[in-house]
């Protein structure tokens, strides 16, 4: 079946977003822990452990500590994980096991609104997680302010990009186990090769070019620049990439989801 008509999205998608928020607030104590503790673990392991081995690193012509280098990457990875896991595993559970979308479809909501609500919620989780993690990292003096404040709206944009592609995968997987595949082939390489734990310049040229396809590469560049108080025109390209990425996968996931849900 082809798509019937244009996208049908009204502000009603916020009801879906709000539903997820209601449930999140019930479990907030558990939901708060990972972004709170994770940076502490990483900063301990990498900062104290690896720092001794790596020493300092060159960033924009200055020497910085390894820990200052990876702190923005931790925030970026956190943005990716929160949105991506929300619109993959969590959305899949709601769609497939809990029949939440079926119930919503018997109300004035349309599929496009349900999926939009889910994607916005995924991005919202990135923002919440960023607020917590950035708070912790700031206590170590690793983020420059006021430029660092821009990381918060940026976390929403990054969250939208990863929530949209997550939802795209949700629209095509037959079973929940299959998410292992995009995680293994997409998320893990990004986690390692997006300028997260070592500078991209240490990679061969072809690999550097390839890594520019990863949304995480652009997100890490942005968060790192902001964390060091750098705001420059070149960053607009990174932002543009994230916007284009979202503008591709958001509508695409709506189309695919419509096809999956409407029978």
């Amino acid at each position, binding site marked *: *079946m082809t798509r*019937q008509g244009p996208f049908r999205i009204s502000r*009603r998608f916020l*009801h*879906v977003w*709000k*539903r997820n928020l*209601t*449930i999140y607030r*019930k*479990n907030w104590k558990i939901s708060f822990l990972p972004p709170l503790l994770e940076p502490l673990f990483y900063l301990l392991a990498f900062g104290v452990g690896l720092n001794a081995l790596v020493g300092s690193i060159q960033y924009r012509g200055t020497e910085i500590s390894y820990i200052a280098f990876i702190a923005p990457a931790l925030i970026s990875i956190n943005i990716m994980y929160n949105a991506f896991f929300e619109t993959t595993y969590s959305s899949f559970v709601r769609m497939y096991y*809990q*029949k*939440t979308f*079926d*119930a*919503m*479809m*018997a*109300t*004035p*909501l*349309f599929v496009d609104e349900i999926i939009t609500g889910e994607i916005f919620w995924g991005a919202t989780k990135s923002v919440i997680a960023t607020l917590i993690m950035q708070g912790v990292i700031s206590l170590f003096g690793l983020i420059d302010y006021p430029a660092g404040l821009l990381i918060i709206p940026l976390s929403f944009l990054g969250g939208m990009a990863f929530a949209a592609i997550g939802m795209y995968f949700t629209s095509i997987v037959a079973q929940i186990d299959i998410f292992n595949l995009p995680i293994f082939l997409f998320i893990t390489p990004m986690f390692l090769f997006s300028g997260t734990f070592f500078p991209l310049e240490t990679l061969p040229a072809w690999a550097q070019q390839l890594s520019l396809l990863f949304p995480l590469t652009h997100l890490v560049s942005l968060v790192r620049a902001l964390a060091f108080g750098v705001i420059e025109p070149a960053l607009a390209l990174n932002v543009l990439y994230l916007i284009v990425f979202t503008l591709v996968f958001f509508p695409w996931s709506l189309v695919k989801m419509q096809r999956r849900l*409407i*029978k």
Partner: protein
Amino acid sequence: MDFVIEAQGLKKTFGPFVAVDGISFGVSRGECFGLLGPNGAGKTSTIRMIYGFSPRTAGSLKIFGLGIDEGLRQIKSRIGVCQQENSLDTELTVLQNLEVFASYFDIEPSSARRRAEDLLKFIALEQRRDAPVIELSGGLMRRLMLARALINNPQLLILDEPTTGLDPQSRHQIWNRLEELRAGGLTILLTTHYMEEASRLCDRLIIMDHGRILVEGKPVDLVRQYAGRDVIEVSEPTDRLRSFISSKGLPHDDLGHRLIIYCDNRDQIYGEISSQYCQEGCILRMATLEDVFLKLTGRELRE
């Protein structure tokens, strides 16, 4: 006639498979209309087209006099649906389930709360209002599904097997509630596998099979027409009985170990059969909708 649902040549296919094969029916205001049929008959597929969940393959469908394609959002906001599978928010409490669902209809939080509390009273769940749904029994979940379907004060209530899997107590509870709603003038579309439920609740019903309508009518009329007044059931029938039945030309179903005879003049024939032809067991009972159903749809298992 003031029709709430008007279906003309309604058809639904999944690839080459025809689930609903061009059916036509109308449901008028205030009526409780039953959709009966064996597993896979196409009941849920029909219902899903009516509440706008699935697009139809062919045919026309009007709800509240509005074409389903043009008026979908408006139609959806005036319908309440209790789906075949429970789809409650198990992490939330009973009350929150109703409140969250109300928000999908753009109902203000304060009136949602009031409506939710009324409904909890209606289904006798007010004591459990703060219990997480995950702790409820199957019967309570089903009652909550019913309450949730009523949250928007619908003008049409669609129930897909509302009582399947419930104990007799819960089932009667739901029947009482549905009778109250019907008495209040609500239009109801109901599917069920319980013939007793259909006889009790439905003003009119259709029995469908393989996506087609076999019969349509009032339960009592259908029973009269297809099963007669009485039924005699004989276990382990003898060949002597079989030839007696044939000689009398009585309509019957021969199931091998069991013979079902449809008749109108109960006393005379039953007397004769029970005294002369009955060795194992032999009962006389009123004909029911179940007899009609089995007669029309056969006794083979589906799916």
